[in-house]
């Protein structure tokens, strides 16, 4: 019993170590973080201004609602990008620095190691997404009197479990392909969002893509956050989005760990952990 408690304590210390290391790196690269945040703001604005652009060219739309729909889609895009990027860096950055062999020969379980990366990614992503939403919203005369921001954050937090699971799968790609694996994370991000109604209702998609939307956690994350922010839906009303997210999360985490273990095994069999140039 005491041994198990000590082992659990050691794992928790290791998990905190992963979070601590990422915090150190954010601090060391603070100016770069600010530069990338500016880029994300600019990128998000290019999407969100579309609503006003459509009205200016004679289109008849509810600008307030469309702007908010686009803003939520763009923030979700950025959030997913941050989650996948941080998780993919589990391998890519450590491989580049050459530290990966020291990390992988430490007695920390891979699930705790990845959980630490996932925890940091979610906290970092949520903080940046809230800031991004606030900064971009300030460019528009948005009125959201009914918005349930707490409900939206709950949806995003629950969806994050699934996103982390999928991120674990993409994070192993740099082990399989050191040169191009990282970029494949962006492919996963794009594919996930295109079928999930990122800037449009899922109903406009071809039928086969609509089927894919039903198994994508981003679909429920987008619907839930939009319901919470636009219609002020409470947690009870958001249950229709929350329960599929719980189910997908329960599947994606073990699946992600399994895929990562397969990738790690492949890398250890073929000697791909070592940095090569």
């Amino acid at each position, binding site marked *: 019993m005491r041994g198990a408690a000590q082992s659990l304590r050691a794992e928790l210390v290791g998990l905190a*170590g992963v979070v601590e*290391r990422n915090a150190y790196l954010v601090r060391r690269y603070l100016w770069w973080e600010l530069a990338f945040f500016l880029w994300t703001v600019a990128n998000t604005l290019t999407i969100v201004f579309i609503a006003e652009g459509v009205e200016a060219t004679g289109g008849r739309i509810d600008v307030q609602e469309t702007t908010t729909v686009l803003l939520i889609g763009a923030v979700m895009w950025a959030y997913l990008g941050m989650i996948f990027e941080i998780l993919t860096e589990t391998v890519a950055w450590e491989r580049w620095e050459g530290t990966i062999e020291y990390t992988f020969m430490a007695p920390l379980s891979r699930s705790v190691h990845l959980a630490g990366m996932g925890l940091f990614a979610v906290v970092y992503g949520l903080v940046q997404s809230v800031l991004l939403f606030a900064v971009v919203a300030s460019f528009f005369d948005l009125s959201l009197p009914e918005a349930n921001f707490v409900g939206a954050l709950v949806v995003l937090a629950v969806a994050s479990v699934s996103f982390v699971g999928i991120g674990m799968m993409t994070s192993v790609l740099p082990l399989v392909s050191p040169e191009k694996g990282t970029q494949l994370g962006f492919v996963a991000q794009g594919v996930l969002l295109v079928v999930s109604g990122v800037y449009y209702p899922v109903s406009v998609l071809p039928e086969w893509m609509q089927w894919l939307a039903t198994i994508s956690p981003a679909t429920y994350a987008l619907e839930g956050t939009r319901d919470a922010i636009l219609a002020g839906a409470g947690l009870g009303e958001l249950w229709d989005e929350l329960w599929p997210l719980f189910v997908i999360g329960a599947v994606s985490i073990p699946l992600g760990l399994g895929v990562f273990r397969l990738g790690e095994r492949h890398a250890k069999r073929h000697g791909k952990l070592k940095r090569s140039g």
Partner: protein
Amino acid sequence: MTAVHVSELRKEFLRRNGRRVRRERVPALRDVSFTIERGECVAILGQNGSGKSTLVRLLSTLLLADGGSATIFGHDLGRDSRAVRRLINRVSVEASFFKKMSSAENLAYAARFYGMTPAQTGPRIPEILERVGFPASRRREPMENLSRGMQQKVALARALLTAPVLLLLDEPTTGLDPRSRLEVRDFIRQVRKTHDATVLLCTHDLDEAEALADRIGILDRGRLVCLATPEELKAAYGVETLEGVFFAATGRALEDDEGEEE
């Protein structure tokens, strides 16, 4: 007590050869067998590409063997890899760190993976840095500001911070200036005395092997061709120097470059 038991360990890598589409299997280790007793220091000599780093990586659980078996203090590398990881640490030729982070931050990160809390690493890190001859006052400087020798000292500190009972040293002094080399050697001797650590040292530095090791093995193109005390080796090959032993055992000089290792 046996610290390391290696039996017919084998590793091959797939390599694309020129324009041929199919990849061929290149043996890196061929049926290597040896044992190291607790507290012993064994040096493995070999040219570049002889399989030294592959051996260290296999014992560090960073590679999976294609055949044979190995145990560290009775724990099987394949079946009980987490128990093995608790007992070992490694210093390699490349002092790999997060370059923007300081030595203290890098050491803290490594120590957390072994369950060491901030309360434990807070006093321990400056203490161990002082021991390896690294000025503790520089522990908050980014690693990228440090010389190669200083970085290698931090690498030694990282390995010792977790109090490993088996220390795997893969060319730990390559690229260091003569003074740093001597400091590192002194430190390895000190660690053996004070920590009761078992050491496997892979090197192509004959002086280093003779100065530090109880027994010396020669790895040639993946095969362990001999393993004995320096005196036994010299007597067996009828030569007076380790250089002569190496030439007699392999037919080549140690400096001849065999090619890059996997």
